[in-house]
């Protein structure tokens, strides 16, 4: 029962460094999402994908890139880390049904600190 798996769980980056946050799901969901959560705030959508080969920007895409080459994987790339990207990152997946139920399943999160 893996569901949505994110790696790593924690990471400290120096300003200007790059890294990729990995996300994989085993539920054959077509929709996948990346959110970030800052302290005291709700989750904000960074990027999302409605299927393999299709990605689109969310509310806060600047400084990030994504790709979706397979149904299972949706990595998030930070090219030049900045302190403003210090946050907790959540990957999620869903398979919206005909009734519009959009229940999304979330990974455990990646806590990223940029110093």
């Amino acid at each position, binding site marked *: 029962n893996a569901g949505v798996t994110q790696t790593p769980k924690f990471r400290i980056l120096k300003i200007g460094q790059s890294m990729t946050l990995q996300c994989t799901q085993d539920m054959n969901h077509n929709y996948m999402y990346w959110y970030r959560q800052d302290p005291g705030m*709700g989750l904000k959508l960074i990027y999302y994908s409605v299927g393999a080969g299709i990605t689109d920007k969310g509310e806060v895409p600047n400084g990030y890139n994504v790709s979706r080459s397979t149904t299972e994987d949706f990595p998030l790339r930070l090219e030049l880390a900045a302190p403003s990207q210090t946050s907790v990152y959540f990957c999620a997946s869903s398979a919206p049904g005909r009734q519009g139920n959009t229940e999304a399943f979330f990974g455990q999160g990646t806590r990223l600190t940029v110093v």
Partner: protein
Amino acid sequence: DQQVKQNSPSLSVQEGRISILNCDYTNSMFDYFLWYKKYPAEGPTFLISISSIKDKNEDGRFTVFLNKSAKHLSLHIVPSQPGDSAVYFCAASSLSNDYKLSFGAGTTVTVRA
């Protein structure tokens, strides 16, 4: 432009009593509403949802009420238990927006013994 708002950052309730969490939204295109529960150092987990064509949905101790005219929904937890202590997020989505979830800022619930 926050489309989903939870105006109460925290709620303290005695064990066995009712917890009522509130959520307001501004986008009339939302057609599906969800509540998520989050423990520290974990991802949010789905709790209960409601379609815009309904005004109530119940699942065990959890009931969600939707008032479309007021653009307001609430989550009732009866009776509250210590394990309910968590952060609760209200979320909404619409078919016209690729079912992307818009989240409120969350309400931290503390259930006192």
